[in-house]
C-alpha cells in the first residue's frame, strides 16, 4: 500500500509498455478489432469502478449495471433523432444522472451490511431495470437507438469525429487512462486508506473517528459516476440502449471480471475484463456451447487463483516484497466474497 518508498522499475515499465501497445493497436489492427478493444476497455472502466467499492470498500454491490445503463439512457434520450448530440453537455448530464442514482441508492443501501447490502443493491438495480423495461418513454423492453455518435465540437469546428472507430478508440483510451489515474490517486490518499480501514474493521474505523458512512457513500458515488462514464461510451458505441444494460446479469458479469482480475489493485479488474471478453470472443468462434465452456473456465480461474489473474502475473514476473504483501491479504479477503456468492 505504501508503494512510493521503493521505486521498482516494474511499477512504471509494464504500464508504459502496455500503453504504447494500446496506442499502436489501431494503426496495425483491422477496424473490427479496434472496435472490439474499445468495447473491452469500456467494460474495463466499469469493472474498475465496481472494484473501488468491492475491493477497497468491501461492499459487494449488485447494482452497478444500473449506473452504467442510466447514463446510456440519458444519452439516448438526449440525442436528437437525426443529429448528433454534443458530448460537452450530454456526458456531464449522463454522469450527473448516475451520480444522483448512486447517491440515492447508496444513502439507503449503505445502512445495511454484508449479504443484506448485496440484496438491497440487487433490489434497487432490478427496480431501475423494470422502470425502463415496463415504461413507454424510452422504448420499453425494445430499447432505443442512438443514430449518431456524440459530436465533439468547438464552435463550428469538429475536434474529433467519433464516427471514426480510431478516434472513438482514442477517446475511450484517454478516458481509461484518466480513470486509472483518478482511482490510483484516491486509493493512495488518506480517503482511500480510510475506506480500506472501514472494510478491514468497521467498528475500529469508527471509534478512531472516521465517519464510515460518509466515506462509503462518497466512494459509492464516485464509483457510480465512473460506471456512468462507461455506460455513456458503451451506449454511444453500440448505438443502442436496452433495459438489459441495467440488469443484474451485467452487474454479476462485471463482478466476475473484478474477481478474475483481483480485488487488490486499481487495474486488476481491467485485466479481468479483457480476459473475460477475450475468452468469450475466442470461445464463440470455437463452439456453439460457448457459454457452458466459459462458465467452466471462469470457475476454474476463480478457484485456482483466489487473487485473480494478477497473481499469476506476479508469479510469472517473480514476486517482489510488494507483490507478496499484496497477494497475502487478498487470500484472506477472498473468503467473505465467496461466502457472499453462495447466499
Amino acid at each position, binding site marked *: 500500500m505504501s508503494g512510493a518508498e521503493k521505486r521498482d522499475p516494474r511499477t512504471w515499465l509494464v504500464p508504459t509498455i502496455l500503453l504504447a501497445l494500446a496506442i499502436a493497436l489501431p494503426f496495425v489492427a483491422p477496424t473490427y478489432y479496434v472496435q472490439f478493444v474499445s468495447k473491452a476497455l469500456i467494460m474495463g472502466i466499469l469493472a474498475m469502478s465496481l472494484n473501488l467499492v468491492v475491493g477497497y470498500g468491501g461492499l459487494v454491490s449488485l447494482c452497478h449495471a444500473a449506473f452504467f445503463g442510466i447514463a446510456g439512457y440519458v444519452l439516448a434520450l438526449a440525442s436528437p433523432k437525426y443529429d448528433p448530440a454534443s458530448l460537452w453537455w450530454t456526458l456531464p448530464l449522463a454522469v450527473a444522472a448516475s451520480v444522483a442514482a448512486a447517491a440515492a441508492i447508496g444513502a439507503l443501501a449503505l445502512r445495511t451490511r454484508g449479504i443484506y447490502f448485496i440484496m438491497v443493491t440487487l433490489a434497487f438495480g432490478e427496480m431501475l431495470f423494470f422502470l425502463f423495461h415496463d415504461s413507454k418513454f424510452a422504448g420499453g423492453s425494445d430499447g432505443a437507438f442512438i443514430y449518431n455518435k456524440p459530436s465533439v465540437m468547438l464552435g463550428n469546428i469538429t475536434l474529433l469525429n467519433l464516427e471514426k472507430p480510431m478516434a472513438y478508440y482514442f477517446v475511450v483510451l484517454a478516458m481509461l487512462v484518466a480513470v486509472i489515474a483518478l482511482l490510483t490517486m484516491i486509493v*493512495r490518499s*488518506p480517503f*482511500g486508506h*480510510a475506506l480500506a*480501514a472501514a472494510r478491514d*474493521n468497521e*467498528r*475500529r474505523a469508527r471509534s478512531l473517528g472516521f465517519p464510515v458512512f460518509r466515506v462509503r457513500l462518497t466512494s459509492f458515488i464516485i464509483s457510480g459516476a465512473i460506471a456512468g462514464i462507461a455506460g455513456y461510451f458503451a451506449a454511444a458505441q453500440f448505438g443502442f440502449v436496452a433495459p438489459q444494460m441495467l440488469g443484474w446479469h451485467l452487474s454479476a458479469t462485471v463482478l466476475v471480471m473484478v474477481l478474475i482480475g483481483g480485488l487488490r489493485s486499481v487495474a486488476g479488474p481491467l485485466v479481468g475484463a479483457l480476459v473475460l471478453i477475450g475468452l468469450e470472443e475466442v470461445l464463440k468462434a470455437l463452439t456453439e456451447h460457448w457459454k457452458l465452456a466459459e462458465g467452466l473456465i471462469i470457475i476454474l480461474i476463480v478457484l485456482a487463483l483466489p487473487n485473480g489473474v494478477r497473481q499469476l502475473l506476479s508469479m510469472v514476473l517473480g514476486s517482489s516484497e510488494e507483490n507478496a504483501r499484496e497477494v497475502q491479504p487478498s487470500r*484472506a479477503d477472498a473468503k467473505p466474497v465467496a461466502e457472499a456468492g453462495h447466499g
Partner: protein
Amino acid sequence: MADNSPAALRAEGLQKRFGGLIAVSDVSLDVHTGEIHAVIGPNGAGKSTLINLLSGDLTPSAGEIMLNGSDITRFAPDRRARAGLGRSYQKTTIFPQFTAQENVRLAAQAHATSPLKMFGNVTSDKLVNRHTTDALEQAGLASRARIIATHLSHGEQRQLEIAMVLATQPQIILLDEPLAGMGQSEARKVVDLIASLKKGRAVLVVEHDMDAVFELADRLTVMADGHVIASGLPQDVRVDPAVRLAYLGVEEDAA
C-alpha cells in the same frame, strides 16, 4: 488527587436497558486528568457495557455523559473520538491486513486536519508521520512497525491497540481489559505502558487482573449487577464489606 478540578469525563445516572435486562443501572463516575480510574467487578457486572456507553458504541437509555464539561451523550462514536476520547476493545480490534505502522497511521490520520483528503499519498503528512512514530515508540513497537498486524503476537496486538489509541492524541483513554489473554511477561510490559499513559491524560481501565488493578489504580469503582457498589481510593474499597460480599458471598446473601 485532583478532586477539586473538574472531571475530564463524567457520567451521571447512566442506565442501559436491553429489553427487560438492565445491564447498567444508575452509574455515576468521574475520571480526572492525571489519574487512572479502574473499574472492577464480577462477570456480567456491566463493566464492558459501561465502557461502550462512554465511548458511544452504545447509547444510554438514561443519564448523561460530560466531556470536559460539555454534554456528549448523543454523540456518535466517531464524533466522541474527534472530541478527544480514545478507546481500546476487550477483543483485539485492529486492522488485521495493514502493517502495525499503517494501523497507527490510520489512527493518527483520523485526527489530522483533513483526514479524508482525496489527493496526496498517505505517507506525505509530516505531522501524522510524527504522531505515528511517537505512538509506536511509546507502545514499544517501533521495531515491529513493518509487520502485518495479523502476524503480530497477541501481546503485541494489544500493544498495537494502545499505540493506535495514543496516536489519536486523546485526552481521555478508555481501556477494556487490556491484559486479557496475556502471559506474565507480556502483561508486565503493558502494565508499565498503562502506568505511563496517565501523564496529562485521564485513563479509565476495566480489568480482571487484581494485582495489576491495585498497582495501577488511583481510584477504584466496583460494580455488581449493573450497580456501583463501592467507589473511592483502592485501600478503602479493598476493605469495603459490600465489595467482599460481591466477590465472595453472593449466594450466602441471597439465601
